[in-house]
């Protein structure tokens, strides 16, 4: 098993990330040397840790809601004769054509500035991979297994709960992994609509022509997404 060796390595990476967040405001000379033209190269408008907390709250909260919705929709889509499949497929095709920033922008006039439009878009977009993973996972359960389970007199609910979902779990979890990474990325875009998160320094920096803010925000957003992807890859295994 390679698993035990990888967990400490991941924890080390998390520690490095947190250390970098702590160090970022204290590295004034470094940012100053990298961006000599910028007047105030050190991001100090909000603490990095509160931005990280807000970012995680947004994306993890959205995935929690989307996980329940997506799992339910995925289960429904595979029941009966699959009558719910076509509208779900159609929804995927449409959602693919609407970039997340467009969904956030469309929700903005209704919900106002802040975290609300981002949260709505996050839940909508995070639902899709969970739903797709659930459908693919449940579809992949061999029909012989289902027949055997039914043959032993299990009820439909018990077959679902004790046979189908456990067998489909790896595929569902990989859908969840995609959802988390997607949420972290989309939450960063939400900074455009006033949601506080690690994307905020990027947006503030772009608006004020401050390359140092953009670099710091971009670095930590990308780092968080990569870390989350690694951690979930481990969890899926």
């Amino acid at each position: 098993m390679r698993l035990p060796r990888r967990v400490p390595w991941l924890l080390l990476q998390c520690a490095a990330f947190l250390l970098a967040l702590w160090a970022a405001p204290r590295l004034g000379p470094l940012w100053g040397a990298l961006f000599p033209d910028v007047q105030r190269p050190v991001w100090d408008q909000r603490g990095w840790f509160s931005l990280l907390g807000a970012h995680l709250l947004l994306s993890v909260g959205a995935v929690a809601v989307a996980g329940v919705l997506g799992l339910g929709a995925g289960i429904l889509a595979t029941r009966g004769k699959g009558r719910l499949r076509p509208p779900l497929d159609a929804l995927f095709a449409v959602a693919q054509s609407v970039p997340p920033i467009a969904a956030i922008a469309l929700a903005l006039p209704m919900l106002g500035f802040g975290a609300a439009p981002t949260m709505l878009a996050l839940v909508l977009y995070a639902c899709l991979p969970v739903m797709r993973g659930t459908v693919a996972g449940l579809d992949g359960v061999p029909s012989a297994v289902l027949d055997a389970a039914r043959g032993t007199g299990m009820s439909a609910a018990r077959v679902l709960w004790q046979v189908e979902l456990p067998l489909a779990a790896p595929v569902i979890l990989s859908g969840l992994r995609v959802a988390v990474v997607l949420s972290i990325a989309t939450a960063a875009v939400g900074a455009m609509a006033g949601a506080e998160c690690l994307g905020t320094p990027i947006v503030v920096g772009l608006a004020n022509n401050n390359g140092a803010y953009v670099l710091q925000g971009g670095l930590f957003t990308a780092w968080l997404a990569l870390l989350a992807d690694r951690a979930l890859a481990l969890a899926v295994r």
Partner: protein
Amino acid sequence: MAQAHSQQRSWAQNRALGALAPSPVPREATAAALLAALAAALPFMLGWLSLAANRLVSPKPVGLPLQGTTGVGAACFVLGCLGVALLARRRALLPWAEAMAALALVALLATVGLGAGAVLEGASSLARAAPAAGVWLSALALLLAAGCCAAGRDETSGATPTRFLAIAVPGIAVLVLMGVLDPLSLLREAAARGPELRMAILRHLAISAGALALAAAVAVPLSITALRRPRLEGALMGMANGLQVVPSIALFGLLMAPLAALATLWPALRGWGIGGIGAAPAIIGIAAYLLLPLAAGMLAGLRQAPPDVLDAARGQGMGEGAILRHIRIPLGAGAMLGGLRTAAVQAVGLATLAALVGAGGLGTLVFQGIGQLAADLILLGVLPVVGLSLCVDAALAAAQRALAPAGQRG
């Protein structure tokens, strides 16, 4: 017409001869009928039009003046929805149900345009009429109903409503050209920003195409080389997968600083348009995300040729280059086109964020709209993006279907 009919019949017969039990009512029927009924009911439940005394005050819902032309339009719309529900009950008629959904959408928009004209008659010139929530949701329901019909038709194109778009887009264009939609505030905004909107669309297309070309220039030769080198393939796919994880807004931001530094080091690069701000970071950043669909599609396509065919070709003395040109590429064109389709749709969507780094495009309108909290301006940016990506998806899906071997077709 007769030809189309006979094609459909033979198609239905093929389906009946297939392993699947021939069911008279396709499973898409329920969803399509429910969505069509929802589409018909939504404008009546949630309102057709909203009216604002001027651009700044919040709009209030107003009823649709049901007289003359608007009454006819509304009747056509409801009949169209009914038609979708009825046509979807036969598998062979699903394409017609999809087309009917497009006609219903055109009737809906015509009704709204005519209604807006009637409501604004006698109102001050500052008054603005816009479609109410019911109309937007109804349009979405029709799009989804069409997608359901398309999903039942064939596997290659999935739920992309090709036929729906092929009718709805020209239909809406005719409505715009006839001036039916002119009273709507969205069209007034578009008229006021005509040149800006056209520039943004062209720029958006240029950025997407540039990114697609750049990604293809990297992905195509690398995929061909990686075909017989597993380690290169691992590195290529690992990099392409890793890049997907990086949030786009962060990647654009991270690219700005090094590009700005490059331009400072070699000022000549600025003449080429390469710098921290502008099209360069946007195109490079977008291209990075397109590597995965392009490379995966290329590799899958190149592996499409069956081993015995490749053996036979080698036995005839064909070189690897000839095999690539005459066997691998023609046989894998469908899968490659599938990768191109995913990449092209992603490129159009991602190009919206290009405005962030000063590259222009439709994102400029969206971000201006966000700044002013102006719904019309946001829509003016978002609707073309959605329309463009739907059309790109549908066009490439049609090409993919045309390229698919006859046995795999619908």
